[in-house]
């Protein structure tokens, strides 16, 4: 109901909006997304992976922090164009995308490669990738012609974990050592959803859920998972007088 009233007011206060239009700068809204991303990065537990992974944030976690999904998508794309952010396709869901800051990614990958023979190839790939290319996957022609890699170099990249096989002749961009991350993430998500589902009436206050003791299945911080399930719309968010209520949505595949 609040949204409806606000919309009616908006429709009729068009003159006010015209004056305010000059104020809303796109730079401000980009800073919004960046600050949300930095907040979500703090929720990521680095120690869990012995500091070998860069902090990973999922794109739909941003939807739980901002109302307008379309503008979030737009701003994320802008950050990707400038080369500040990298997006990855995680294997488990065609709609789940992981976001990593480019400097973090570069630092961690080179740190992981230090002392190995593949270091040179990986560095070359990263320099080609980070400022200019914002693709999620690469096929053979692109690798050979545009990036001028040889077959053996491509094999080295796959071995180092920067590329994952998609199908014959094409590869996804990926984060090295991310298998463990995906495993813990899926398990944790299932456990948190189970907690919501088992509650009375399949609903629980968000503050109560944050305070609950996590089982051994849940390796990440509770808030990280909560942003994930809200953003992916696996639970419904209802505003009540005692705070936000999360209600399990039936018909989930999980």
């Amino acid at each position, binding site marked *: 109901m609040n949204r409806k009233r606000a919309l009616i007011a908006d429709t*009729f206060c068009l003159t006010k909006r015209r004056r305010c239009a000059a104020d809303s700068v796109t730079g401000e809204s980009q800073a919004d997304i960046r600050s949300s991303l930095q907040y979500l990065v703090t929720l990521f537990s680095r120690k869990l992976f012995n500091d070998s992974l860069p902090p990973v944030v999922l794109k739909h976690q941003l939807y739980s922090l901002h109302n307008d999904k379309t503008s979030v998508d737009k701003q994320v794309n802008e950050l990707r164009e400038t080369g500040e952010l990298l997006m990855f396709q995680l294997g488990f869901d065609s709609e789940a995308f992981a976001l990593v800051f480019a400097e973090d990614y570069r630092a961690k990958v080179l740190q992981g490669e230090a002392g190995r023979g593949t270091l040179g190839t990986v560095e070359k790939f990263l320099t080609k990738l980070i400022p200019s290319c914002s693709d999620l996957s690469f096929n053979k022609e692109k690798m050979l012609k545009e990036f001028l890699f040889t077959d053996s170099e491509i094999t080295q990249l796959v071995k180092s974990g920067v590329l994952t096989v998609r199908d014959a002749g094409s590869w996804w961009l990926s984060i090295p050592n991310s298998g463990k991350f995906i495993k813990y993430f899926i398990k944790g998500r299932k456990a948190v959803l189970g907690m919501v589902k088992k509650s009375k009436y399949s609903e629980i206050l968000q503050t109560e859920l944050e305070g609950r003791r996590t089982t051994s299945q849940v390796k990440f911080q509770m808030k990280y998972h909560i942003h994930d399930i809200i953003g992916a719309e696996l639970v419904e968010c209802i505003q009540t007088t005692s705070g936000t209520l999360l209600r399990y949505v039936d018909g989930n595949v999980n």
Partner: protein
Amino acid sequence: MLLFCLILINMTYPSMTFARVCSNIYFLNDLCRHALLPLQMFFAIERQSGLDDPVRLRRAESTRRVLSLELNHNRDVDRIHGNGINTLDIEVIDGRYMLSGGSDGVIVIYDLENNSKKPQYTCKAICTVGRSSRHVHKFSVETVQWYPHDTGMFVSSSFDKTMKVWDTETLKPAEEFQFDGNVYCHHMSPVARKHSLVAVGTKDPKVQLCDLKSGSRIHILQGHRGEILSVRWSPRYDHILATASTDSRVHIWDVRRASGSLFTLDQHNGDKSKTSSEAVNTAHNGRVNGLCFTADGLHLLTTGTDDRMRLWNSATGENTLVNYGKVVNESRKGLKFTVSRGCSPEFVFVPCGSSVAVYGLHSGELITMLRGHYNNVDCCEFHPDYQELYSGGKDCNILAWVPVLRQPDIEDEETNSKRGGTQAAINPAFEDAWSSDED
């Protein structure tokens, strides 16, 4: 009304002369805001003074009405169907008659106009093609549509593999088309003058075009690889057709061309890197089961079983990437949804489970959920002249969502209480203000 404003001005700014006020209309606007007059008077004042186009007031008022849709205990629709309602159609000429088709094969025609002078009104069913009729469909009726140019004829298609063209007067089919598989949907072009083709989507991957003038099937459009769940003609051009199928693809066709489709809708806009290779060039990651053009025909909305709704530019096929979030869609057949007409931010009404979700068309935000049905909602139809929404579902009810009436002005309330409460029941438009007492 202007007098009221002037009195207000005199009260607050007694030093202002009449001439100065009239010459400074912008001052008037600011004053209205500060004086906390109802916001709607704003637009009325601007319209009256010629500052604004008349269309703006109309659009603003339509938007306000759509935003205040709710169930009204004064408006009801006759309950005739014994089984779920699959499809609704309101005729375009008068907006007076509504067709509904049900899972029991029954087709009903309702009169939506309120000629009684009371606010309490039930939309009566004028006639039905019931189970006792000789020509009734044997299985569920999936789509009904009025003939776009008058109400003398309507077309219905059903799971009994036939499509019937009915004469409204006699309620007998004037024409019957037989198909090989279940007919999921059909559509006639609302703007066509030169042709009277009906596009039919069946279990067969070939889209069939039937001609009403000759009574034969004259054209087949090949290109899909799965059942056709939805077909729609463009409201802008009479030769553009969109079809959606279980193979996750949406094709846009120009029926004048002999070769294949014009283009397919690609959810990633050609960016092949985003998906796995099987999903390249698809509109959705699941079956595409709903299609709807916006009123101007410039955009196309599609819904799919991947719980997503997408908005496309209908001329280029580009995905506008408006993110509506999760639009729950579990329908195995076509989903019938609709877009508002004549409002300033347009709205999409999508049946989601047992409620109807209202989204802003270009912003993608969920505005509200209209809850009222007891079971799944299958279809909804928007009445553009009165900004009303009719929805039908498995609970055999057709619900009418009516905009909330505006609160009476302060002056009217006072005069009403003086005259007595009975006057409030009659709409002032029907009040007899001209007969003299001497007769």
